[in-house]
């Protein structure tokens, strides 16, 4: 008897799930009038609230661009803060429509966890920071060093692999957060701090004496960070992917937030016209949006280069060089397929 009731309840729940899952994410977002975007609880330069409570950052800019493309207003985003533990569940359960949270694109996350990565908005890699007083100029000289490392991350595994491959020994000092790492490193609890190079640069920028610390040249892992969506709704994945592509293409084509209004009146370059919706082709209709979607996405925060410069570029305290994230025409990896 008990069993029947239980099975009955499960069936009812399953029916509800099936019934609700049929609507597309795009329809849901439009009906809600708000994009639920998962961000981190705070990563310098990538997502952080300012003193007015507005979220700012490189990952946040992706959320805003998608909201602008889909809903016509970059402000119509509900930022859901996620931790390393809750981020994937939040996305899989539909609590968030899009996760833009410094998440490395890996095989198992793409396949086993059933997500679709919409692209790479930042090519990162794991690096090392040491005190210059140590006199170390290469990671190969770090044999026997004590290393501050965040537990439960891919960086921990990469570190073990790297030291093993180079036949070196190290002593790990496990830490939980970046803030803790800064304190431990400055207090001399470890010789080396290792995490993503962007994080190292941001951390170094906060020191009272950044000139005494050096980031070693070796990058020991590939960390392509990008926005991701749940598998199973290709149209929604396409929207996010091509919004990201539009930002990159805009930089390549010289579309900026300053000249976008003028360019959208029509240019001699047919690709710009197609992107900005001033030609006959209606690219937006192919992904369930209107003609102006890409124009709004770019206008939200500028093209990829502008977003980069405003949040993590060389003029900011974080001061990251474009490096791998330069356009392919300038020796980097940022490359958008053609808008056609």
């Amino acid at each position, binding site marked *: 008897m008990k069993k029947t009731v239980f099975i009955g309840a499960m069936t009812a*729940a399953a029916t509800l*799930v099936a019934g609700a899952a049929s609507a597309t994410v795009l329809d849901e977002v439009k009906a809600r009038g708000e994009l639920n975007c998962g961000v981190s609880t*705070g990563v310098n330069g990538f997502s*952080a609230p*300012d003193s007015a409570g507005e979220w700012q950052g490189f990952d946040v800019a992706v959320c805003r661009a998608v909201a602008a493309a889909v809903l016509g207003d970059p402000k119509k985003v509900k930022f859901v803060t996620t*931790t390393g533990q809750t981020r994937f569940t939040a996305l*899989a*359960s539909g609590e968030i429509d899009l996760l833009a949270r410094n998440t490395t694109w890996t095989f198992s996350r793409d396949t086993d966890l059933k997500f679709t990565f919409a692209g790479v908005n930042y090519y990162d890699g794991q690096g090392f920071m040491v005190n210059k007083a140590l006199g170390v100029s290469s990671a190969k000289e770090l044999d026997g060093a004590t290393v501050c490392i965040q537990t439960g991350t891919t960086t921990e595994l990469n570190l073990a692999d790297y030291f093993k491959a180079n036949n070196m020994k190290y002593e790990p000092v496990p830490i939980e957060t970046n*803030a803790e790492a800064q304190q431990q490193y400055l207090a001399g609890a470890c010789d080396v701090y290792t995490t993503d190079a962007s994080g190292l640069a941001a951390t170094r920028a906060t020191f009272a004496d950044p000139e005494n610390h050096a980031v070693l040249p070796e990058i020991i892992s590939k960390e392509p960070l990008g926005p991701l969506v749940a598998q199973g709704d290709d149209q929604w994945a396409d929207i996010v992917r091509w919004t990201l592509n539009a930002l990159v293409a805009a930089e390549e084509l010289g579309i900026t937030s300053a000249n976008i209004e003028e360019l959208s009146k029509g240019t001699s370059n047919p690709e710009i016209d197609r992107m900005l919706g001033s030609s006959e082709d209606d690219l937006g209709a192919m992904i369930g949006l209107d003609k102006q979607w890409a124009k709004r996405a770019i206008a939200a925060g500028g093209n990829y280069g502008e977003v980069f410069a405003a949040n993590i570029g060389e003029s900011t305290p974080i001061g990251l060089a474009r490096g791998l994230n330069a356009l392919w025409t300038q020796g980097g990896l940022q490359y958008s397929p053609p808008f056609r």
Partner: protein
Amino acid sequence: MSNTKISFVRTNMLPQKSPPSSQVGAVRWLRENLFSSPLNAMLTLLGVLIVYFLIVHLGPWFKNSIWNANSLSQCREILAGESGACWAVIKDRWHQLLFGFYPQEAYWRPVLTFVLMIVAVAPILFAVVPRKVLWFSAVFPFLAFWLLWGGSIWYSVAALLGFVVGFGAFVLLQRISALVAVIGAVLAPIFWWLFLAGPVDTLLTAIVPIRIPAIQSHDFGGFMISIIIGVTGIVLSLPMGILLALGRQSDMPLVKWICVGFIEFIRGVPLITLLFTASLLLNYFLPPGTNFDIVLRVIIMVTLFAAAYMAEVVRGGFAALPRGQYEAADALGLDYWKSQRLILLPQALKISIPGIVNTFIGLFKDTTLVVFIGILDPIGLSNAIRADSNWNGIVWELYGFIALCFFIFCFGMSRYSQYLEGKLKTDHR
């Protein structure tokens, strides 16, 4: 020998002399309290040394406090290499640490709620407050919900009316029989909430629209969320805990085993597990699109957790009562509820006050665990604030401020419990 002349016999009293210098004033106090034995003397010197080091190291840090700066680097420029606290971060972000992302123009709402909360708990905490204020205490939870989350006032009113309906049903049906009255008092409000509350809410909203802008839970944060979760948990866990403690002692096997099972299960898992369940697992179990508020889920879990502990604390109080008290209650011919209410519970609760307040303080501090499920409580916000390039690298000032706020609340609770213990002290031990 006997007739040896005694050369001197004092005939008058000597004037009183002042006691030796080692037995008076500061010296005596020092000798008695600080240097009464070699070990104590050493401990005293050690203590002085520790205080000295604290002052030498923390003194300049506090003395050079900087309140006006826009970023950590600016603080450092002003300090020019000296040690000093950069309190400017608190000045810049205090509103976030207190209210999270609650809209600034609506700060009056949580502040008013907080003030009203003090009014509402006053008659419960202090006997001098007029009893009539208890009516306000009963209405307060609904008022607080409306003030904090906003929307139409009639939503709260309709929910409140459910209790009125239940009470009405109880009074009306009491003429038939007590059992029917209790059943009616439980069923009528449920019927009201399920079928009538919605239409009544809609109707009243249409006639007299009283509404303030609605604010979603995900904008809540900082100490506001700690206090909401903590206070709701505290208020709900005490009655639940008492019921569970009574249930555990019950003679009815079903009630007893349900209560024991609940208490042992909840006490057997860490709070963080329950929070992850609330935030992650429920997402999978509930149909997508279900709007089951995350703050509500957390409050439920925290309350269940605290209730299980509370039950054991209260049971300890019951266990300390002499057998004679139970027998005396029976001998007076009181029924179960009357003997509990009039004789046993007051004594058991009085004994358990330190344990109860201990659980409250623990619960209030445990609210910081919500940071692991992405809710921005003060600790979570300190991370978010540090993620801003302006304040990246600032640690002690933020944690110091948070610690101070928590200390004020917890110390307040602790002092109140001591006051209450003193007031209720009837034995002459």
